[in-house]
């Protein structure tokens, strides 16, 4: 019972970007993934990347309205990692026999699909933001990513007033949206 409560608290912390929750999850579960990946043709860095992707999958899952985890966090993370690593091996043309693992797993197809779909949109946004050039990139990142106000952005970028910054942000935003939707529709 206590363990269950603890898991709930961890998930709640995770949903709120609490670094203590993230740290606790790394401390309790990363070595399991490290072990699994390095025993199956992978490196320490591979394990780090795979684990981070699994963390993102879990993080995005806890944000869902109807969120519910039907198993232990450990089982969930391991299932995601195993699937992701299997895929990676196949892509590298390395996959041979079923992977060696003693841990129990659950079916996570749906979550992986969701992750991949979001990953595609994420990659587009990342690409188009980086193709914008300055000052648009920093201006939009300042506004959307770092949640800075127009006044603050105006002084940071040397605009005489907030209205000028707003104007510039508008132009940049229109460019970004145009680029984004040009690529975004392809995936549909």
């Amino acid at each position, binding site marked *: 019972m206590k363990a269950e409560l603890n898991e709930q608290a961890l998930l709640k912390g995770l949903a709120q970007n609490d670094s203590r929750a993230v740290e606790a999850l*790394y401390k309790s579960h*990363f070595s399991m993934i490290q072990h699994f990946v390095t025993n199956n043709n992978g490196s*320490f860095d591979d394990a780090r990347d795979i684990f981070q992707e699994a963390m993102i999958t879990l993080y995005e899952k806890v944000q869902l309205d109807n969120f519910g985890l039907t198993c232990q966090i450990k089982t969930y993370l391991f299932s995601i990692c195993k699937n992701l690593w299997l895929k990676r091996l196949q892509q590298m043309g390395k996959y041979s026999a079923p992977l060696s693992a003693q841990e129990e797993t659950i079916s996570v197809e749906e979550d992986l699909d969701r992750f*991949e779909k979001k990953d595609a949109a994420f990659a587009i946004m990342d690409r188009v933001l980086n193709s914008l050039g300055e000052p648009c990139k920093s201006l939009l990142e300042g506004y959307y990513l770092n949640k800075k106000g127009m006044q603050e952005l105006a002084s940071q970028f040397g605009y005489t007033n907030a209205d000028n910054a707003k104007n510039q942000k508008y132009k940049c935003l229109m460019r970004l949206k145009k680029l984004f939707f*040009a690529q975004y*529709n392809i995936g549909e």
Partner: protein
Amino acid sequence: MEDIQLQEAIERYLTDDMSVEERTQFEAIRKTKPGIDQMVIEHAMFLREMELYVNRTNFSALNKQVFNQLLDAGTWAPAAEQSTSFKVIQLWSKYKKVTAIAASVGGFIALFTSAMVLFFFPSINGNQILELSKAVEKIEQNQKVQGHILNEVKTKVPENSKLISGGSGFLIDTKGFVITNAHVLKGEGAIVVNSLGQEFKATIVYSNKNSDLALLKIEDEDYKQAKALPFTIRKKSSDLGEDIFTLGFPRNDNDIVYGRGYLSAQTGFNGDSNTYQIQISANPGYSGAPVFNDKNELIGIMSSRQKQAEGVAFAIKSDKLFDLVDILEANELTKDLNVKLNKQKVKGSKNRKAQINNFKNYIYSVRAFD
């Protein structure tokens, strides 16, 4: 000015930054003006993706930070690494030569590309036109589906490399020179696959992002030099309304696909005089596919299509191939390749089925790996 106010209002509406009164007013406008409603929906979608991007970026950064702190504190030892690094060294010595060649080819292409910028000015507008190369995911999917088959026949993609893009290509010289689009070759190297599914190793001889043309040379002992090309490469420009067809590999199962259409304008996107506009249903994967007329002449190379207009595609004019050969000949490093374009009229059949049958052995699926 009005646009910016409208955009601002939409953003405030979507981020719940409006007074009740203002909100009611805005909703009323939204109901009566479908154009505005559409903008709201689109912006909501954009903000959702932006939020995902922001959240993921921040969360990834948090993960990296936590991980590095724990790593510095000695929580995990990347000790089991010995065997892995040993493997890496082995691989390195095995592929040292290949890497060196790849690096020199890469350097050469870089030099070349910058030199060629002077020759080819128009750049492609990524906004409104779509390159026709197949996306990564699609190919990966293919790999997944055919994973075991590929393993069985032993793919010629080097171990440790992963396919990242693909398209079509065709022989312009039976010595093994294959033309494709530069944007198809996203990675370090490529293989080509013929219509029978046979793979051949190829090296990238030339690639120019501005003209969007690239030249591969098949270098594989399994490659048997084909008989003379069954088509001519047309130097003069083609006529409006001319019947055209293409053969390429837009699908993942490596079946060759035929498409027909007509030449609809002498210039391409935004009046680009290096390309034709053609009316044909073009799918991703057609990039680099040849465009023929019914006189056994190659008139163009498929390269992109317009996003909004279905069936509108662009093909690089075939006379650009002559420019490409001139460039190769003018360069110390490539003049010995001796690429020859077929200018002799080919009498062959004008029957479409016979033409396809003749041509298909000269057309390849191109797969680039990193």
